[in-house]
C-alpha cells in the first residue's frame, strides 16, 4: 500500500502543484487538498496509466450520490490506494 500511496501522492503533487509533504495517507483529496473534478480527471488519467487500470470514477460518484458510499471511502488517499491495489490485483487474477 505504501508504494501505491507514494505513487499517487507524487502524481497529485505534480498534477495539482501541491507540496508533496502536505499530502498524507489521511488526506482527503477534495476536502483537504482542494482538488476539483477537473483536476481529478488529470489525476485519474495519470493513475490509470501508472497502474494499467481504469479507475471506476463514474461508479464511485454514483455510489456517493446514492448514499451507498461516502467520499472518504474513495478520496481519502489511503483508501484510494487500497482501491487501486484491489483493481491491480483483480487485473492480474
Amino acid at each position, binding site marked *: 500500500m505504501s508504494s501505491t500511496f507514494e505513487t499517487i501522492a507524487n502524481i497529485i503533487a505534480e498534477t495539482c502543484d501541491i507540496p508533496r509533504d502536505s499530502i498524507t495517507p489521511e488526506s482527503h483529496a477534495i476536502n483537504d487538498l482542494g482538488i476539483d473534478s477537473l483536476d481529478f480527471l488529470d489525476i*485519474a488519467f495519470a493513475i490509470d496509466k501508472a497502474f494499467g487500470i481504469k479507475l471506476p470514477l463514474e461508479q464511485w460518484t454514483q455510489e456517493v450520490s446514492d448514499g451507498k458510499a461516502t467520499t472518504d471511502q474513495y478520496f481519502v488517499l489511503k483508501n484510494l490506494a487500497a482501491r487501486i491495489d484491489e483493481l491491480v490485483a483483480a487485473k492480474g487474477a
Partner: protein
Amino acid sequence: MRLEYFQLIDRVVDINLTERRISCEATVPSVSTVFEGHFPGFPLMPGVLLIEAMAQTSGWLVSSINKFKRMSFLASVKEAKLRTFVLPGYVLNIESKLVHEGSGYAVLDAKVKNSGKPVCDATITLRVMEFPNEELAGEMLKMAARVGLTPEMALNG
C-alpha cells in the same frame, strides 16, 4: 465550416474504431462575420476555433465509440500549438486519435493539417456522460448524418 453555428466539421473522411482514430475535413469559409473582427483587413481563422475543430473531431470519435449513447464535452486542452496562420478558403484535415478511455472521460491527441502541413495540435480531454436530454441526443444524430457519419461507419468503423 459554419462558423456562426459553431459547426466546425464539414465531413468525416475516415473513422477506424479498432485503431480508435478519425479523420475529418473542413473548409474555412471565404466570407464570415467572424473575419470582420478577426481581423479587419487581415482575415484569419481564430485559433480557438481551430481548437474547437479538434475538439469536435475528437467528440465524433468518442461518440462513435460509445454508439451515440453518450455525449462528449470539452474539459481541457493541453499542449496546444497554433503553428501557422489559417486563411479563408483553406481546406483543413483534422485528425484525432484516442489515447485513453477512462471512466467518464477520454483523452485524445488531435492535429490539423493544411495541404499536408501541420497547422495546429493539442491533447484534448473530453468528459463523457449521459445526454442531458433527449432533444440533444436526437440532434446529435442529425448532426452526425450531416457530417456523413453514418450509423454503419459509427458502428463498424
